[in-house]
Structure formats: C-alpha cells, structure tokens
C-alpha cells in the first residue's frame, strides 16, 4: 500500500488514501511486480485522475459513505470488495476512467516493463531487431496456380 504524501495534490490526504487503496485492489503486488499503489506509480495516477476531479471525488464519496464510521482503507478486503462492486454499478464511468489511468501509468513503469521482458524505453530510436524470416514456409503457396481471376 502506498505511503504517498503529497502536498500539492488536488485530492485530500484521505481521498488519496482511498484512491491508493483502490489502485492496490486493482493491481496488487506480486513476486516480480509492484503494486499499482507503489508511490512512484500512484503519484502519476493521482495526477492523471485530477483531469476528471469531479467524477473521482464523487466515487470517493460513495466509498466513504459506504464505509460508514470507518475509513475505506481500514475495512477488510471483503468489505472493500463489496463497496467496489456497488461502485461499479453506480458509476461505471468512473471505473472505466480509473482502470484506464491506472493501467496506463502502471504498464509504463520501468520496473513493470522489465518484469514483462521489455526494455524500459520508447520504441524509437532504439527500435527492435527482427529475426530472419524462414521463407521455406512459402513453398506450398509457391506451388499453387495463380489465384487471381482472369478478365
């Protein structure tokens, strides 16, 4: 879970905790992969979520209301999952936006790219080396008569 503390975020500390908790629920840590709530990733996600602040805060409010006197991130896994299921039904547009922003930032992270077997860089200028093609695969096609229709 993220320990992210940001003083210049458009979201309050409590909202950030709720959102980071959601990020972790979406993509938790695994043996080789960080959680989406990893501080470096979460900071980028929160920044991206600010583009639709109103939608995001509405969702946070739904979760807070559902949590009652407790805080969302303090609930049990089962309780949080039930609230997220409720959120999916109430604001699918938030879920769609949130998923997209989390996935976008997560899968551009250097550690994640390396874990996936990718070099942590853009395609250009390095490019990629393609293997030589085995053109003997074409032998049965070369043996065919013309396919095109005579006119």
């Amino acid at each position, binding site marked *: 879970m993220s320990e992210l503390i940001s003083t210049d975020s458009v979201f309050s500390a409590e909202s950030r905790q709720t959102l980071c908790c959601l990020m972790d629920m979406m993509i938790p840590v695994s043996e080789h992969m960080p959680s989406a709530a990893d501080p470096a990733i979460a900071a980028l996600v929160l920044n991206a979520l600010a583009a639709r602040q109103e939608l995001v805060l509405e969702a946070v409010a739904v979760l807070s209301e559902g949590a009652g006197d407790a805080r969302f991130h303090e609930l049990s896994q089962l309780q949080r999952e039930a609230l997220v299921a409720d959120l999916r039904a109430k604001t699918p547009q938030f879920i769609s936006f949130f*998923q997209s922003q989390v*996935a976008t930032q997560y899968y*551009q992270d250097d550690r994640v790219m390396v874990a996936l*077997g990718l070099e942590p860089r*853009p395609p250009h200028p390095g*490019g990629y080396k*393609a293997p030589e*093609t085995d053109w003997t695969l074409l032998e049965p096609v070369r043996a065919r008569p*013309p*396919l095109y229709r005579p006119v």
Partner: protein
Amino acid sequence: MSDQPVDVLIIGAGASGAAMAWSLADTRMHIVCMEQGDWMNPADYPTTGKDWEVRQGAEYSFSPNKRGRVTDYPVNDDDSPIKIANFNGVGGGTVLYAGHFPRLHPSDFRVRSLDGVADDWPLDYQLLEPYFTENDRMMGVAALAGDPAYPPKPAVLPPVPIGKLGETLARGFNKLGWHWWPSDAAIATRPYEGRDQCANLGPCISGCSQGAKASTDITYWPAAIRAGVELRTRCRVREITLDEKGMANGVIYYDADGNEQFQAAYIVILACNGVGTPRILLNSRSERFPDGLANSSGLVGKNLMLHPYASVQGVFDEPLDGYIGPAGCCIWSQEFYETDADRGYLRGYTMEITRGRGAVTTATAGMAAGKIPWGAGHHEAYGQLFNKTAGMVVICEDLPELHNQVTLDPVLKDSDGIPAPKVSYTLSENSRQMLNHGMERGKEILRAAGAREVTADAPMAIAGWHLMGTARMGTDPATSVVNEWCRSHDVKNLFIVDGSVFVTSGGVNPTSTIQAIALYAADNIKKRLTELFD
C-alpha cells in the same frame, strides 16, 4: 487576395495530391498545392516516448473528432456504424496509415461483367500497371515477387520480416492449404532515397519516427518541391469558384489566421479524399450548379464505400514477439478474395495479419473486455494475454449504394465556419455475410495456428480508413462525376484524383491504387495539354 492565376491549383497534400504534383512538375507550369494542415515533425511522433500508446489514441488518433487539432475539421458520423478516419497535414492519411500496400486486382475493375453487380470501371489493371510500378518505385515498396494472388509485379525492396508471429500464423495457413504471402508494404526495409530503413518500432499507425514508412511528406513532396511545386500549408479551401463560362477560376480559402483569401487558377485539382472532396464540391454552389459543383449527375457525395472490417484475435501459449515489426504489415491472405457464389455473398476480402498489442493496450482492452480482473488474478490473466495475442483484420469489399453518402451538416461547422461533412452509411446484407464468412475463416486459421482462445467482432467501428466512391468515374455524364482520366464532366478544367473516383472498392487498402490513378490522370493532363478543355 491573389488575382494572379497559377497554372494548376491542387487542393490536398496527401497520397494523391502529392503524386499529381510530382508528376505535373515535368511541365514547368506554376503549380501550387494548398493543404489545410501543417508539415509533420517525425521527432514529435508518439513512438519517441514511452507514452506512445496514450498519444496514439489522443492527438494522433485516426478520428478527426477525437484528435481535434486546429487543422482538423469535424465529421458528423453519428449515422454510421463505421467512424470516419483521416489526417490533415502534409502527407494526409499516409501520415497515419499502416503502409499496407496491396493493389486492386484485375477482377476489381470488372465487377459488373464478372459478377453482375455495381459497375465496371472505365479503365483496367493493365492500363494502370505502369503507374502502379512507378508509384511503387516512388514510395519504395517492400514486397516479395511471385505472389500467386496477383499478376507478376516487381519488388522494389525486400519484404518486411514476418517475425515469430507471422511464421506462427503462416503455419496455420499452410495446415489449411490456404494462400498467404508477405504483405506489400510501403516501408523501406533498406535505406532508400534518403529514407532510413525500418527499425521495427511497431506502431506505424501513429506516424513513423524512423522515417522509413512512405508517407508522402517524405517521398513525393521533397521531389515535387525540388522540381518547383509550391506547397502552402494552413490554407483551408472553402469553395471552388467559376467564371461566366462555367470554368473553374480559383478557390476561396482561409489562411492560418482565419482570413478569407482568393487564389485564381487555370486548372483546379481536388485531392481531399472521399469525404473532403464531396464536402468542397457540395459547398461550391452557384446558379449554374445549385446542388454543388460538378454535380449535374446528382452523384457527388453518393455511393460512399468504407470497407467494412472484422477483427479476429487469438491467444496463444507461447510469446509471439508481436511488438517487433510494423504493426499492420506482416502477411496477408487472399484465399477468399475472388467471388465464389456458394459462400452466400458476392466479391471477397483480404485477411491482413496484424502484430500484437502494446503493454498498456493489452491491459486496458483486457480489462474492458472482462478478461483481466482486479486483484490477485490480475497478473496471471495479464500474463496470459500480453505478447501472446495475434490476429488479423478482414477487409471486405464494399459495393456502392446510393444511400451511403456524404452531405453537408446543417449545423456542425469547422473553426472557419465551413459546413462539416455528414456521413450516412449502413452495412449491406452482402457485407454482413462477407464479414461473417471472414470471421469464421479467421477463427479457423488461428485455431490451426495453435490459438487456445479466439474471438471475433464486426464491423470495427474505428475502421473508416478508406473513403471511396463519392465522385465516381465513368464515361457517361449521367452516371458519373469524372471521366476515365479524372476530369469533371461538367467543368472541363476541374479534376478529382482521390478515392472519390473509385467505381468499386475492391477488398484491399486503396492507397496504391489511388496514387496509380493520380499518376495516370497526371499523364493524361500532360499528354492533352493543347486540348485539355475540349
């Protein structure tokens, strides 16, 4: 305002405008091309950043509505299941195309004679063959000679490597005994005419940072400009004007500051694609042409053809390295290209094998489709999809229908106040049957290649890439807009050279044929200069 006429004014600097400008430069006439967009800078293309997948879907989106650049015009495509794609800038649609570069086949020009549908073209493959070849040389086409789906044709550059993904699919085709061949690709696989060779970046469809893909800003335009053609960017043409004799005498356009300007011209050539061209013609109304310029037939904007696409995807157990190599250029199959009435439809389609999705798109698409869950199962589900997905698109021939059309939207306008095009389009039953056939055959191939899970979907909403038929060519002025060498029947110094002039669509990407026709039209203009307006 410029009352000093230029000899030739070309509207649009894309695939056909560039080819036309380069060819006409031989004449030493004063040739001006007006382009509403800008020159592109390859250093700005998305593949120079790790966020390439995000930018590909935003400011480099195929959709002008999503892209929303100041150089774009909006398109009302609410009344179409297939949304319009284009790009406005020097190079036009070739900036964002895949570079997949098949020619139309000989049979495509004879559909009425062969299959009793639509109409024959007033020209044929044999007539266009030298122009195809010239265009292949100018664009630098990578290919492998000997494809039995075509009459013999030369290969300018070695074919693109098909990679592990391509070889996997090729084995599937071979198991079924079906045709496949490396795709003809407008991609330099070796250094060529000042272009660097392909570095296998992947997403050619958001612009080639390497400069290997043949967009016309780096192929025809440098040569045309060296030969004296003047290219003016940020000039958005509103309408073509007429003199008292009914001849085109210039254009009214808006400059980069939004100021209305006039440019006089002796010859006007439209090269704005199958939506942009009818838009300008329909907006060029006069007493002589109250329904739009060159529209005595009533066919300007009608018979819009879009190529309905199906997508077929398969998930494999082994990594396919699909991120290596041009995304849209791998192998193709034309096993089902020619008509077989037993299939339940007429005409046919191309299967274009596409390479894999990027890391971000795998996640967003997988979650949207419900294949990648939240929580503990996320990583495993993602791992089963990433770099293990391969597939194809099925490009179906779209037959012309009058009700599929481009009109002017009564409300929507671009930033200069020019009415936006409105597209009304429905899929025919023939197209539906063809899409269904293509999806089933695509699934068979993927299973034969070893896919453990296959899915298919059609029509692809984003796939309005090919815009054709809205100012068709023909010998009869009552049933066509331009003649067989692209001169308007109604206005003798007005020419149209983009996909609008297509009589039928074929079942392949049209750029190669669009450019061959533009070169053929240019040759006719040059040969007929002394009698051009007779």
